[in-house]
């Protein structure tokens, strides 16, 4: 039974790891950190795999865990983003070095993390407002307000990066 569970878990991971990595990266903004957090989320998922698989939606559990780990990680004082007037020297870029991040990623980086998580879940994962609220353990009203504020920030960032002219973004009620 245990072997079957582990096999099912590994099969599920092989199918969903790329999606989880992308979600983690968009929320936390760092591929290496995203990999670490996804691995931790997978460990937590495996520890309750029997229950979660029986409930029928391991992806929701994994997604929720990944996003919460990203948000929690940034809450810890020693791990907070430190603003620099000039960028420090870096040995290598976070990505594979074949160019800079897509404009959407750079714009998302300017959105506060809570709002960023809402935008990623709503527009990258295509979750409904209710599903987003469940993933973040918050209310639908909070999701709407966070999305609305996040869109304003994202719009300004996209405009500053030259991706759009004068966008008008509103969250549907």
């Amino acid at each position: 039974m245990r072997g079957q569970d582990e096999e099912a878990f590994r099969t599920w991971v092989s199918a969903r790891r790329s999606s989880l990595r992308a979600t983690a990266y968009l929320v936390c903004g760092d591929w290496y950190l995203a990999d670490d957090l996804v691995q931790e989320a997978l460990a937590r998922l495996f520890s309750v795999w029997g229950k979660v698989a029986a409930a029928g939606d391991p992806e929701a559990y994994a997604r929720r865990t990944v996003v919460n780990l990203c948000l929690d990680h940034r809450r810890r004082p020693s791990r907070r983003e430190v603003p620099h007037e000039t960028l420090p020297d870096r040995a290598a870029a976070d990505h594979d070095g074949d160019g800079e991040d897509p404009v959407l990623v750079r714009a998302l980086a300017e959105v506060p993390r809570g709002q960023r998580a809402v935008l990623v879940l709503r527009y990258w994962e295509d979750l409904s407002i209710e599903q987003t609220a469940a993933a973040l353990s918050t209310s639908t009203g909070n999701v709407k307000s966070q999305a609305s504020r996040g869109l304003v920030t994202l719009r300004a960032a996209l405009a500053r990066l030259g991706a759009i002219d004068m966008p008008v973004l509103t969250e549907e009620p």
Partner: protein
Amino acid sequence: MSEQQLQDLFRGTQLRPPADRIDVDAAVRRGRRRRRTRRAAALSGVLGAMVVAGSVGYAVLPGVGGSDVGTRTAQPARSSSATTAESTQAPSPETLRRSPVVVAKPGQKVFVTPDSYLTINGQQYCLRAYEVDGTAMAVTCKSLSDGNQPKGTVSTQGASAVHHPEIFTGVYTGTDAGLITVTAAGSTKVATIVEPAGAASGVAFFTTGPTATTPPHPTSGVRVTVYDRSGHVLVKLPG
């Protein structure tokens, strides 16, 4: 930019991820450790509660403990006004002599089941139970001291009837309870009393087993009787 354009922007964005560094084997090993740790913690909590409850019970056995300090044992007296129906359902004095008592410090977890536990302090008690998918904890709290529940009365709070129909908890706003029984589904159980360390204005109690007769109302069809330490009925619910 419209909503649709925004969604198109998200969908059209191509990420360039570096090589995948996720070690699934390590995740599985760590997951196993987490599971073992969680189970061990739950088991130790249950065993700890049993040890505490057992030691309290041992201390108050007549002729064994030799002291009435901390007595929580009561011989439920047969009330002359008890109805025949109640008499047939009521437990016998031999089988119902005492409620185990756990005196819990603030923050101490008193495990009800391996994935649910009570905490209690002078102000309130809370029951925390993992939802069936293990993703979150359902929390039920009840104040002991806000005055909403008069002194000397009993109230009941079931856990989530969907996920934990087997858990039944309640509050008695007094400190003189020696025995609390819960009758449901044709059987009577002795509840475990959970008392906050130090001065207390009330106690919590719990039982496990088939009590939910009509989910999602786990407390319906359940009768609670609180006896004092001399075996006299203090209060019944429903009255």
